[in-house]
């Protein structure tokens, strides 16, 4: 590569990178300056933390954080239990109609939970789970994607290990717990990262099912806080936005490699 094309490549790549993080940088700028300094892009204006203080006092953020945290935990536990059992059944057990059931599960990959909001809402209301964290998490627990992922991971386990454990007198669930689950650890980790970041960021379904600050996750809280009816200014909205994305963003910056690997593993099936 000649040095000119190399320079052009670096220049283009870095220019695009700067454009790509510009919205975040401007939000950081706005959040740390007074509104009038922020919108005038007054580069020498003083820094301030007032916006964060105003934003923090403007809504029950701690509660929202806790709700989001509980929500992603509940979903992850439910997903681990269901996808492990179902994935194991599809990978290693024989039962009548297995292939047809598996196709039914795969169909769920395309019938997105997002599209089923009307039906899921009716179902969750019938179950009496409206405005509960369990109600928000439930439609995602029997994840077809997770079942598929676990099935692939379990299929990769050598059958000799299975046989050895059986001869040692291990029951079926014991084999699953002692042989398959430990060997699928990287898949669990990848799946957990994808699941947590998906549900940390989810909005539409929680917006529909929650109706009080006691259940509302961060994303819904943020959208209510920033609504024009509330008349908050752009610096305060920026501060609130940065506050709510900070935990996930910091985790991402620290564990960047694991995040990217997780998304790849989860994506290339």
């Amino acid at each position, binding site marked *: 590569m000649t040095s000119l094309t190399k320079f052009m490549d670096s220049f283009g790549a870095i220019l695009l990178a700067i454009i790509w993080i510009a919205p975040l940088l401007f939000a950081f700028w706005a959040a740390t300056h007074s509104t009038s300094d922020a919108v005038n892009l007054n580069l020498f204006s003083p820094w301030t933390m007032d916006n964060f203080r105003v934003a923090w006092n403007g809504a029950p953020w701690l509660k929202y954080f806790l709700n989001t945290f509980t929500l992603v935990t509940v979903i992850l536990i439910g997903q681990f239990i269901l996808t492990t059992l179902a994935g194991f059944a599809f990978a290693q057990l024989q039962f009548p109609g297995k292939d047809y059931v598996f196709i039914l599960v795969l169909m769920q990959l395309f019938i*997105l939970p997002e599209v089923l909001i009307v039906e899921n809402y009716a179902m969750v209301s019938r179950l009496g789970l409206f405005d509960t964290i369990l109600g928000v998490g439930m439609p995602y627990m029997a994840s077809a994607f997770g079942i598929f992922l676990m099935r692939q991971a379990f299929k990769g386990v050598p059958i000799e290990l299975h046989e050895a454990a059986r001869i040692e007198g291990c029951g079926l669930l014991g084999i699953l717990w002692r042989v398959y689950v430990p060997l699928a650890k990287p898949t669990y980790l990848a799946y957990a990262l994808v699941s947590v970041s998906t549900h940390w960021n989810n909005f*539409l379904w929680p917006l529909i099912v929650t109706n009080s600050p006691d259940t509302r996750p961060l994303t819904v809280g943020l959208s209510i806080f920033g609504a024009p009816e509330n008349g908050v200014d752009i610096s305060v909205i920026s501060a609130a936005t940065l506050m709510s994305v900070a935990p996930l963003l910091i985790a991402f910056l620290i564990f960047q490699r694991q995040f990217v690997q997780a998304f790849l593993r989860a994506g290339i099936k």
Partner: protein
Amino acid sequence: MGTENYADLFADPTFWLVVKNNLLYAGVTIPVSIGIALAMALWANSKISARGFVRTAYFTPTVLPMIAAANLWLFFYTPGLGVLDQIGSLFGLPSVNWLGQPETALWAIIIVTIWKEAGFFMIFYLAALQTIPEDLKEAADIEGTSRWTYTRRIVLPLLMPTTLFIAVNAMINSVKLIDHLFILTKGGPSDASKLILYYIWEMAFAFFDAPHAAAMTILVIAVLGIVAAVQFLYLDKRTHYQ
């Protein structure tokens, strides 16, 4: 039973406007984000300076919630105060209400979507690029092949399965990614930026018209089913290769 719900939908001009909007949304976001993702991956995979920073910058929007992304972009689009207007005023351009006029609202939404998903698609290209053997590049260099020819004749064909995979994902996203509408435009002005899933939400939970929302849900599922069938056929084809 219930066929009149579909008849009502087909007689509803808003429904057709929303379908048209969503087709434009898909027709622009799918190819553009795939193109940008490919450029990002080629750059992030080449020996450029500040590669770590570049990769992080491209991927960061992926980990943000769509709601937060919309708030960040609000700062760009706000008329008078927004960054775009500030830049425009440097060149003497008049203030533009990007989100408030029918001609630009949907495009403003489209840009946020592309920004959000391009970095995500990049990582799949990046992974695929790293599986292309080094000696192909060496052979091309010995033959004196230009970089453009190498990319077009060798790299792009090898990336084809990845492109198809990404295209299916982008198609699903063009139905699914609508959270930013709640912050930026609420589907307005006069439905100019309204997308199908937002319309379903609005019908069911703002107008309390569940039957029509359900009818629309069925239509969307039918379309997604066709996409699924296409992907299953493609997956079948790929297993024949191995």
